[in-house]
């Protein structure tokens, strides 16, 4: 019915008592997410949003969390991710933006060694409609369904979600992998999970200019994915060499342009739309 998270996922929030964490944890709890507690060093033993607060992830392990949702400031993300990873929490979602690349290099190598899944940083998180919302996406635009959505961008994901919801297709799960140079999970990691998920019929992949994540995904799709993939690449009109907000969105020397990416995806059998507003419609057409 979903990938990575569902009703029974026990979520620990790191940086629990911060303002962003409080806002979004509350929304997640209201959505029905099983948030079991949180960590804020120095506030162990207190309660927050009706849930227990711990000084460390180690202390929280008595509640057996199997997902960690991280809202700590960028300078402390490396530490928080590694703390959760050391305790063997198998799924870590880091929402925070602005994490130094050098920190992510270390983190990525370590979590790969440990076999842990990291989503983010600099991402909206992951949601399985009507089951669990681990992130900052608006819950009410989602609808339980059979489309898997993967995206490097936050708000652009919401567009794809809204279109599939409006058309009645709904989503199995939606994952924002984040737009940073070294993300915890790649398109490929999520494509593999959706491809194996019996309750996902088609996959929407929202990419953007810069890097070569979409090109790598194209190769993977043509070799391993047997479900239809629909894709939109943002930044078709971005001028070359200009930085468009995301660190990932730098076009370097003819590589990583929207045009290149779209061509490569098309050759891999992906249904590529050149208009953002056609993502939902095309998905419906592909499934009909």
């Amino acid at each position, binding site marked *: 019915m979903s990938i990575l998270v569902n009703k029974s996922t026990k979520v620990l929030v790191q940086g629990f008592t911060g303002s*962003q964490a409080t806002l*979004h944890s509350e929304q997640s709890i209201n959505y029905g997410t099983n948030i079991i507690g949180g960590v804020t060093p120095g506030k162990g033993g207190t309660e927050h949003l009706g849930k227990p607060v711990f000084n460390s992830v180690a202390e929280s392990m008595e509640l057996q969390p199997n997902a960690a949702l991280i809202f700590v400031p*960028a*300078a402390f993300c490396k530490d928080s991710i590694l703390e959760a990873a050391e305790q063997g929490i198998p799924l870590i979602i880091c929402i925070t*933006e*602005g*994490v*130094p*690349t*050098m*920190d992510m*290099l*270390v983190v*990525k*190598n370590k979590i*790969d060694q440990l076999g842990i899944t990291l989503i983010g940083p600099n991402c*909206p998180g992951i949601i399985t409609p009507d089951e669990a919302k681990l992130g*900052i*996406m*608006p819950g009410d*635009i989602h609808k339980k369904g059979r489309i898997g959505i993967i*995206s*490097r*961008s*936050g*708000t*652009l*994901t*919401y*567009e794809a979600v*809204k279109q599939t919801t409006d058309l009645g297709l709904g989503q199995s799960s939606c994952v924002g992998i984040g*737009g940073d*140079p*070294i993300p915890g999970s790649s398109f490929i990691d999520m494509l593999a999970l959706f491809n194996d998920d019996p309750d996902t019929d088609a996959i929407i992949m*929202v990419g*953007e*200019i810069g*890097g*070569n*994540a979409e090109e790598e995904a194209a190769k993977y799709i043509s070799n391993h994915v047997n479900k239809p993939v629909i894709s*939109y690449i*943002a*930044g*078709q*009109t*971005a*001028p070359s060499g*200009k*930085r*468009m*907000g*995301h*660190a990932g*969105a730098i076009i370097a*020397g*003819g590589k990583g342009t929207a045009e290149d990416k779209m061509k490569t995806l098309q050759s891999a059998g992906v249904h590529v739309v*050149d*208009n*953002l*507003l056609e993502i939902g419609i095309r998905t419906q057409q592909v499934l009909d």
Partner: protein
Amino acid sequence: MNLHEYQAKQIFADHNLPVSKNFLVTNSKEVKKAFNVIGGDKWVMKTQVHAGGRGKVGGVKLIDNIEDGIKFTNQWIGKRLISKQTDEKGQPVSVVMVEPCIEIEKELYLSAVVDRSAKAISIIASGEGGVNIEEVAETNPEKIFYEKIDLIIGPQPYQARRLSEALHLDAQQSNEFWNLFKNLVKMFVDCDMSLVEINPLIITSEGHLHCLDAKVNLDSNALFRQSNLANMRDLSQEDPQECEASNHDLSYVSLDGNIGCMVNGAGLAMGTMDTIKFYGGEPANFLDVGGAATKERVAKAFKIILNDPKVKVILVNIFGGIVRCDLIAEGIIAAVKETELVIPIVVRLEGNNSKLGSDMLQKSSLAIESDNDLENAAKKAILLAE
């Protein structure tokens, strides 16, 4: 964040990478002293701007007398340098760097980058230095050599030996290369760099390795822990609008069209530009108000967009996730009132509190068109821009 060559070379020197001592001049009176301090009878003068391609437009020159040095300084200081890599306005020159002239035996290429695919730092080297390396990579990929730095073990001598052999260095140069290789990686990590390019890395006529040029990009996300480097930022080299935006945590890039855009999220901002273009319009800018947009930031964003006289209409596209649409609406209303806006605004609000936001806009009795369908909103904006 970019650095000037002289700043990059200062960091190089601090990390024991072989660079020349240099001297900076900001006016022609300082040339004589610079030449005297450096000594010798030939000097290289280099304009300091955040752009490549200086040499081809006369921004780098070999000088053999003080008069020509003064002439070069007067020619450049206070002017703007326009090269292939700048926009049509060019970059302002306020500093010229003077270096001793070094005899070149051979030009090589060396760089360090964060390698996204390998999840590592990669070192790139080539025997073809001083030229456009991307062309070499395209036409002669076998002339480019790579070494990946493993995080557990760090840079290893065998990697440096492998590159030394590929670059046909002799035994003495191979030793120098190992030190350079090792120090380059240390500097890259310690300073949170995202790119270092030494093009050319030269072999001098005495047979030593020497970094003749130095280009450095820093990871902006890491500046909070690199305060010394953050202080090297030269705002004069950046677009004043983009600068002003970034001071308010806004991402702004000026473009050539006439439809001003204000969007939350970099992806959706690009998507909005694409949509405008798809329906026949021309975006005037990229502007991401960010995830935690406040009323104040929205107002600031408006002012930045309106500083561009080409803008004939503003399209606001907000999909509220973190952002609450009612706060955005409040910001828009405040900004329109404050700036006594005369150009039309089309607003599309979706997501978190979008209904509330739309209602506020309608009740405001200001000339704001509200349409929650992006296609319609884009088409309206295009129409209004004509």
